[in-house]
């Protein structure tokens, strides 16, 4: 799209609403993620385009998890239109899609950064570390990265960051589902190790239940001490 056209519309290149632009009526475009960007890159000769997304930047406890997913662009199965950004899907639908994406994908990498590293490095650097290790763990190397919101120059790979990529690109949406389900499963397992906080239910996010239990029991080893609500409870 020409830059002129972009300026007139309140939407970006892929139809997303741009920051600061007013909502014109019911302008939330019901948009499904597509392979449009991936196809464009394929025409430029890239073969293994990885979608990358991260989950768990907000919670007070637990790891940050990132996933990288390379899909065959010829993929055309009845479940593909069900794929959305993981936040728009029910837990049940995510669990349903998780194994299907796992089998259909050419390669999948999942990277974790534990809470103590989040404390020492800060959440932004931890996010980058998780994304980098997801890419490095891909069993088949990728030649182009499509990343949600962030750029990873340290990897030295051609890449593009897309704002709201998880609701625009199918590869990034699939990565968001893989990352979300992986992290939720970790938190359910950690609930057995550190019971009493309700990690299986809130997955470490700052719900009322979590905050009450945090005040009652204090922080446990998987709490992120650099986050304000946790820090207050330690004092």
């Amino acid at each position: 799209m020409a830059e002129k056209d972009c300026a007139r519309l309140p939407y970006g290149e892929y139809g997303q609403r741009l920051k600061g632009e007013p909502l014109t009526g019911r302008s939330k475009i019901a948009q499904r993620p597509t392979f449009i960007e991936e196809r464009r890159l394929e025409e430029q000769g890239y073969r293994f385009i990885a979608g990358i997304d991260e989950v768990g930047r907000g919670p007070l406890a637990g790891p940050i998890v990132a996933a990288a997913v390379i899909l065959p662009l010829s993929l055309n199965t009845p479940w593909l239109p069900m794929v959305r950004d993981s936040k728009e899907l029910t837990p049940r639908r995510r669990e349903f899609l998780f194994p299907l994406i796992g089998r259909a994908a050419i390669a999948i990498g999942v990277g974790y950064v534990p809470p103590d590293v989040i404390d020492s490095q800060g959440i932004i650097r931890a996010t980058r570390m998780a994304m980098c290790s997801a890419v490095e763990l891909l069993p088949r190397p990728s030649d182009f990265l499509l990343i949600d919101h962030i750029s990873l120059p340290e990897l030295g790979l051609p890449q593009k960051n897309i704002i709201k990529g998880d609701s625009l690109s199918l590869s990034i949406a699939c990565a968001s589902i893989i990352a979300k389900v992986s992290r939720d499963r970790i938190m359910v397992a950690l609930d057995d190790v550190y019971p009493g906080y309700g990690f299986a239910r809130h997955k470490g996010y700052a719900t009322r239940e979590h905050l009450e239990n945090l005040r009652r029991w204090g922080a446990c080893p998987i709490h992120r001490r650099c986050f304000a609500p946790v820090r207050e409870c330690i004092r």
Partner: protein
Amino acid sequence: MSHSPKVLCPRPGMYKVNRREVGALGEKVAREYLEGLGFFIRETNFRLREGEIDIIAEKDDFLIFIEVRTRMSTSFGTPEESVTPSKIEKLITVAQNYIETHEDLPPSWRIDVVAVELTPKGKVSRVELIENAVS
């Protein structure tokens, strides 16, 4: 076609219908209909713990999983409207399983629905194939 379930009660409003028999009749109607359209039927009533697929067929290099929906009245919606999201999930799960456990399959697959509507007396009033019903 003159299949007719034997279990119908004569008085209107008091039809007591054996659901299983209506379903079986619908599947038979659907099978004949699909064969007429040139489908090669691979399997019927493919059953797994996760669910069941009524008909598995092949046509034009497509592997097609078919859910047959039979209704005797449309007062609760048309047959095809009765395919719920959770039913779709089951169909996809079983279809994926079938693909992984069988060889020499066509390259692509899809899920179709055959809608069969019956009159209260058990006559077929409508048969329709809805291609790619899931998406």
